[in-house]
């Protein structure tokens, strides 16, 4: 038998055998792979049952809302659901078609119907997102057409308001006539569709979001750098001091965690405001005159200072957990090999802290990109971040689609960042503690 001559085959036949396909089998002829699955099935089922509650919780409270939010960022049927006839007309006639009498009739009928069921406000609001100042056009027209119009509808509508003849208005109506739309994303990037359907930048005085995105990322980068500069020495001290002293220091580091965010932020207001402690001291020392008190809060400085303080532990803790595991003999070895203490730091110690630094930087950056409360309290107008704009759309302008689009862009940016980090450093090098 050929099999018996092959030493490897002999080992296999001892344990079981080879079936026709040449794959391994157990002693009683069952394919080995299937036997393995069967034998571990029970354990896997138990493991699944253990994580199931958390899984459900996450699906219901995290995945589901995020999915809905992402959906909302591309979906808004405020116009299409309430203006059905005009929507059909837009669908049947390509862009560039002059509105004919049928279109005007559809508009008049839709306005009348919407006014009667009181959804004209919704339509107006949706239009207003696309073209500022059109809400009142719709609501007032709604009042006037409630009792019906006589043809010719074009003239009747233009009589109500000559703005109805504006090609830009018709273009905007065409844009919002589709429930699924990219217009919120375009708006979030300070872009819009012009009358020909081409994507163009909005007027310079309306460009806010790109600037806010840039500011958010720049400030987040500055805050990350500040937490690194301040956190690195503290983490090193924590990792090298004797236990009793390092515990005390650790409490000081964690203290911000145990204090209300509002209290901490208010404390910064007390310190930084123009009549505040720091300005008082500077004036008292004669470094600045009483009239030259520094503006350190309600601007970007305030945002940076307060957020650096709030986010510092997120940099210190991962750094500390990595530094604690760095054997002091590495530094000793480097010194004995002839390196100065600076070279030892630069070439040995610092590279070994990179996993912690990466984790801390990623954590601080991602947190500060989405930070809301501190900039809202101490940021003034120049210290506002994109998250404040999202909040504004959520709570004041009630343009949830816009808020969703901004959030989705933020999410995408963070995911890209994560991907870049993975490519550069490797996510398995991340050490959170």
């Amino acid at each position, binding site marked *: 038998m050929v099999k018996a001559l092959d030493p490897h085959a002999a080992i296999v036949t001892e344990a079981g055998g080879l079936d026709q396909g040449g794959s391994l089998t157990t002693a009683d002829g069952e394919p080995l792979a299937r036997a393995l699955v069967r034998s571990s099935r029970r354990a896997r089922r138990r493991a699944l049952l253990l994580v199931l509650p958390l899984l459900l919780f996450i699906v219901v409270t995290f995945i589901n809302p995020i999915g809905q939010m992402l959906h909302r960022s591309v979906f808004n049927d405020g116009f299409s659901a309430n203006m059905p006839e005009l929507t059909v007309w837009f669908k049947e006639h390509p862009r560039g078609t002059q509105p004919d009498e049928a279109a005007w009739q559809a508009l008049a009928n839709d306005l009348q119907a919407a006014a009667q069921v009181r959804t004209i406000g919704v339509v107006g609001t949706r239009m207003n997102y696309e073209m500022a100042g059109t809400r009142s056009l719709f609501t007032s027209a709604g009042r006037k057409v409630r009792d019906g119009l006589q043809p010719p509808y074009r003239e009747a509508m233009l009589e109500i308001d000559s703005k109805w003849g504006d090609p830009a208005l018709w273009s905007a109506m065409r844009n919002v006539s589709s429930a699924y739309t990219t217009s919120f994303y375009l708006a979030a990037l300070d872009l819009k569709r012009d009358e020909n359907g081409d994507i163009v930048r909005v007027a310079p005085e309306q460009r806010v979001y790109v600037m806010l995105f840039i500011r958010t990322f720049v400030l987040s980068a500055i805050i990350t750098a500040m937490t690194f500069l301040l956190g690195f020495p503290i983490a090193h001290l924590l990792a090298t001091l004797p236990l009793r002293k390092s515990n005390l220091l650790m409490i000081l580091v964690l203290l911000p965690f145990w204090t209300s965010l509002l209290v901490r932020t208010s404390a910064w207001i007390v310190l930084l405001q123009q009549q505040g402690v720091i300005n008082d001291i500077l004036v008292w020392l004669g470094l600045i005159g009483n009239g030259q008190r520094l503006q350190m809060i309600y601007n970007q400085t305030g945002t940076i200072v307060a957020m650096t303080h709030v986010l510092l532990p997120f940099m210190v803790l991962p750094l500390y957990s990595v530094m604690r595991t760095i*054997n002091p*003999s*590495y530094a*000793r*070895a*480097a*010194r*004995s*090999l*002839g*390196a*100065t*203490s600076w*070279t030892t730091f630069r*070439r*040995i110690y610092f*590279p*070994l802290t*990179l996993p912690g630094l990466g984790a801390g930087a990623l954590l601080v950056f991602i947190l500060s990109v989405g930070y809301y409360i501190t900039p809202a309290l101490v940021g003034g107008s120049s210290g506002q971040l994109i998250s404040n704009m999202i909040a504004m759309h959520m709570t004041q302008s009630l343009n949830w689609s816009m808020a969703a689009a901004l959030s989705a862009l933020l999410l995408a940016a963070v995911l890209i960042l994560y991907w870049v980090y993975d490519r550069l450093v490797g996510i398995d090098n991340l050490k959170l503690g």
Partner: protein
Amino acid sequence: MTVPSGNDSFVMFDHVQKSYDGQTLVVKDLNLAIAKGEFLTMLGPSGSGKTTCLMMLAGFETATHGEIRLDGRNINDVPPHKRGIGMVFQNYALFPHMTVGENLSFPLEVRGMGKSEREDRITRALDMVQMGKFRNRRPAQLSGGQQQRIALARALVFDPKLVLMDEPLGALDKQLREHMQFEIKALHERLGITVVYVTHDQGEALTMSDRIAVFNDGRIQQLAPPAALYERPENSFVAGFIGENNALRGTIEKLEGDKALVRLANGELIDASAVNIREVGQPTTVSIRPERVEFKPDLMPADAHTLEAEVLDVIYMGDILRAVLRVADDDEFVMKYRNTLGQTKLTPGQKLRIGWHPLDARALDPV
């Protein structure tokens, strides 16, 4: 005081003391001269001060008092990176974020050496430890023994005159450890470097060293070549620490030059050579190595005293047999004898008389 220098005192510890807390001395008055090219081992139990001495020599600890000289130069205030001492650490301390080649390149780069010379030296150092193929590996991809070789190569690549090794083989298994002992010893002989080696493994110390300094309680208990240390321990600590040892307590009955007659606790008399006892009537501990104990009358010196013994247990150890005896009320007296063809079989309960050459019984200070 004159400063001795030159080949016999390449490294000098001159009245060195070290205290960490200002209350107790970890190293008490250390005086030690290490010759150029010597392989000196600091041996001792943990906490005996041997590692502290090594760290002071490397520059990671400062001496509280006294002077440490390297090649005639006081190095007390020289920072570690300027001492030019190679060091092998217990856990190897290979930089995990660098490849083997980069690890070896590091000491050369910080010395500002050119690329071609660096390449030359790295190749040579890796070939020296037979690790030339592993140049682009990371330390984590190497086995313990391979890491040990790289650590050795890294400590030698910049041609230090002095190499310190801090329990470098502690993490290896027995077989590999013995193999590496041999290799380190061979390297030492080939390169002619001075090695100061710290270990708590006496077997390692005995096989590798030119001289061994036995540390205990912050002092050197004995400084001697391996054979002298084993055969002629100068005090009870050394006798007990190095190898297996029988200790019999008694008092000095008679003292004649370096010959002593000792009366044991049960009244029996034995001959011993006097080592660190001074007067008759002084309590003493007599130390006898188990393999120097004889039980065949024809192998015992004719005029020597013999002792009554009862076999309690015989343990078969392959190459030798190990008998536990009751001798002079001591139940832990050990005798080793060779497992040869026709060797006398001892059985528990058997009574016999044992003896030894008086030179092998050393009357030491009482413990």
